[in-house]
Structures are given as structure tokens and as C-alpha cells.
């Protein structure tokens, strides 16, 4: 279960006239196994910020994020890294990879990181790239040269190659055409049935209605 308790986030920008930006206050909700919670609310209400707080990329100002038995705010960097490696996946809108590394290597990295044998990892990598319809002749090229939609699917392949019990999805279908969107929604559905607890941001209403079991609107909290 992912549990968000009285979560507050503000940014203190020292070099910009000491501006203090309050993003949100007292967010409370839980996400159980097999649930897909869609975060909603206008731009600027802190949807991506919330995902980054859960993932540990942002510092929690007040309150707690509990993932299984891990309290994110109280965890050391090493514990967070361990949590990410084994349990907590995150698919962002942007692909950040070492240039010149082939797509297949980029995709299987999460498996290698948990000690999976390379042969098995490669097989799984090929499977997920096939599911996501990335043409075979691109597998050995760096994804940095790909189109936006292809890059996004490489990111998704990375996020879904390992069965993370907890998944954070930031606009996973944003730059995809109809068919590809459905493939990704199907992957999310499958993870949900597998018992993953998922929190996502889906601007596309149709996509959201298809996979979300519940919505949390950050404006009404």
C-alpha cells in the first residue's frame, strides 16, 4: 500500500527574492494493491510534484509518504535507491539516458540492476519492445534519435519490464497515437491485475476513464 499522510510541499527559492511557493497542504490518501489512482486538477496544482515526493526526488516539507514499510521522509538515500530498484517504478515524460547506448540496453537496465542474468533480461527486453511495437531495426540504436512517441514507449518499456509492486506514471500516454495508447493502457491494466498499486497522471480523459479505479483531485483536498 502507498499511504500519503498530511503531506505538505513548499519550495523556498533563495535566489529568486526568497520566494516561498506553497504547492499543497495536508494531502491524505491511500492506494491499495490493484488500484490505479488518477491524480487530477489543473496545471500547477502539484500532480507531478506529488509523484516526485513519493519517488524521493523532491524533499517532503511536512507529513509522510509510506510505501509498504518504508517511510520515504525518514529513509536514507541508500534505502530510497533500494526501494526504487526493487519495488518502486517511475515512468516520466522524459527519457534521460546515456547517449549512444542502444535501446535494448536502456530497456533491460532495471533488470540488470536487480541482478537478473543478461540473457534472461535480453529476452524480456525483446518481448516488451515487441509488445510496444518498437521496430526491431531500432533496438540497437540509441533512443535519443527516436521520435517523441518512440522515446516515450522506450520509457514505458523500462518502467514495465520489471513487475514493480508500486508504480508512478507521469503522463504515460501523452505523445502516443490511438493504437499505441491502447497498448500502454493494456500494460497498465495488466500491472493492476497483477496487484501493483499505481498512481498516475493522465490528462487524456478517455485513457483515465479506462484504467483509473479512482480519482484524487488535488484542488479539493
Amino acid at each position, binding site marked *: 500500500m502507498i499511504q500519503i499522510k498530511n503531506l505538505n510541499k513548499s519550495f523556498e527559492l*533563495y535566489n529568486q527574492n526568497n520566494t516561498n511557493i506553497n504547492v499543497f497542504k495536508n494531502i491524505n490518501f491511500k492506494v491499495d494493491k490493484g488500484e490505479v489512482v488518477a491524480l487530477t486538477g489543473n496545471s500547477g496544482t502539484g500532480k507531478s510534484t506529488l509523484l516526485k515526493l513519493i519517488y524521493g526526488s*523532491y*524533499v517532503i516539507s511536512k507529513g509522510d509518504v509510506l510505501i509498504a514499510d518504508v517511510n520515504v521522509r525518514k529513509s536514507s*538515500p541508500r534505502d530510497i535507491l533500494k526501494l526504487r530498484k526493487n519495488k518502486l517504478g517511475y515512468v516520466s515524460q522524459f527519457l534521460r539516458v*546515456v547517449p549512444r*547506448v542502444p535501446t535494448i540496453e536502456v530497456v533491460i537496465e532495471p533488470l540488470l540492476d536487480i541482478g537478473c542474468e543478461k540473457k534472461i533480461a535480453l529476452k524480456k527486453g525483446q518481448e516488451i519492445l515487441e509488445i510496444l511495437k518498437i521496430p526491431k531495426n531500432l533496438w540497437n540504436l540509441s533512443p535519443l534519435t527516436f521520435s517523441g512517441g518512440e522515446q516515450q514507449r522506450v520509457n514505458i518499456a523500462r518502467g514495465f519490464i520489471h513487475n514493480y509492486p508500486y508504480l508512478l506514471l507521469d503522463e504515460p500516454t501523452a505523445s502516443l497515437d490511438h493504437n499505441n495508447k491502447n497498448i500502454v493502457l493494456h500494460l497498465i491494466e495488466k500491472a493492476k491485475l497483477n496487484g501493483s498499486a499505481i498512481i498516475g497522471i493522465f490528462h487524456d480523459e478517455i485513457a483515465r476513464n479506462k484504467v483509473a479505479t479512482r480519482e484524487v483531485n488535488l484542488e479539493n483536498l
Partner: protein
Amino acid sequence: MMQDFLFKASNISKYYGQNVGCKNVSLDINSGEVLGIVGESGSGKSTLLNCIYGNLKVDEGDILLNDKSKTILNFTKIDEPKLRLIQRSDLAFVHQNPRDGLRMNISAGGNIGERLMAIGHRNYGEIREIASSWLEKVEIDVSRIDDKPSTFSGGMQQRLQIARNLVTKPRLIFMDEPTGGLDVSVQAKILDLLRNLVRELGIAAIIVTHDLAVVRLLADRIIVMQNGNVIEAGLCDQVLDDPQHKYSQLLVSSVLQV
């Protein structure tokens, strides 16, 4: 649990007369981790790196290495020959300027082979073969194996230095702006090589750089230095995406895009 760490420096201070090189710095690293040290030039990053490697004598603090036989060595307490031995076997140091890390008057192959011989390799054919494979790994044409590094470009020299240091598979590598002099595409290749070594061989690396894009791709954790002090430390993406200290915020926001 105490025995699990690979390397630990505590309360390191180094003064240059009245000036602070670094002050009261502590860090630790385990096998398979990459630690980045960032800050602008003059912040004490290189001083710190040279102190903890044992190149510079520290004024205060302890430097502990959990060596291959699980014995904990304190660099500030062991004698010079012992330290040099450790530096050759367990550690490696990649200098910012390749001329500081290479022997300029012996061949490229010799530069790599020398390190192998120092750890006991004797078979000439085998040494040459390993040297060739490392030249390939760092994208230096194998036909240049008998050429001296003085005939190489700066970027090639840096790649050769990295090969020379990694060939003996040290457990901890210290790197001072390792990709600074390299063009972008070779830099990428080196980054990938380092990441694979870290994962496959469980090598640990401490990397000093001012290039935040490099640390983002390589480091698990980073420490930010200013005027010889550590002002912020933590998870790499957390420090880069949500820096808490005034100076870290300035440093991160000064970069075009990372």
C-alpha cells in the same frame, strides 16, 4: 554491519596555511556505488579527492578502507610503502590532466601493460591482448598500440588513462573531472563503460566534476561543496531537482539544462 562499508572518510580537514582546502568533510561509499562531488572551481573538490586518496596529507580526520582481506586500514596511520601498495591494488586515480596519469614516453600498450605487470601478469602475448581489448573499449584504434601517448590527442590521452586505470579492476576509483577534456560522443561512451563496470564488477567510484549532467547520469548520491565545506549531500536526483541550500540552488539553476 560496520564491516560492510568499502571506504569511509570522516571529518577531513586540510589547510593551506591560512586558507581552507576542505573542512570537516565526511563521506562513505559501498561497493557498486557512485558518489559525485560537485561545486564550482575552488570549492575544494579536488583537494578533498586528493586527501582521501592519500595523495595529500590531511590535517585532521580519518580515512578508512575495508581492504580485500576485510582488514580496516586507516590511511593516516599506515606507512608510505603500504599506502602506495594499496593505491596500486585496491584503488585507482584518474587525473583531470592525462599527462599526470600517463607515462608519456612509453607506448599506449605499455601504459596499460605496466599496470598488469605490477599486479603479477607476465605473459607478454596475454598482456598485449588485454591491452588491445582495452584500447577497443575506450575507442582507440588498436593499430596505435605501439605509439606513444605524446602523439595522441588530448581526448585520446584521457581515454588511455582511463583504460590504464581500469585494467587492473580496482575496487574504488577516484576521478577528477574525468570527462572534462573529451568531446561529447566519447564522453558518452566512457560514461556507459563506467556504469557497466560499476554494475558488473561492483566497482565503486568517487567522481569530482562540475558537469551536473555527468553526475546525473552516473552518480547515486552527491555532495555539494562550497569554500571547502559540504553544504548539501544526498540522493543525486533529489539534490539536483530540489536543492535545499541557497548555493546548491544557484549551482543547479546556472546550468543551461541537465
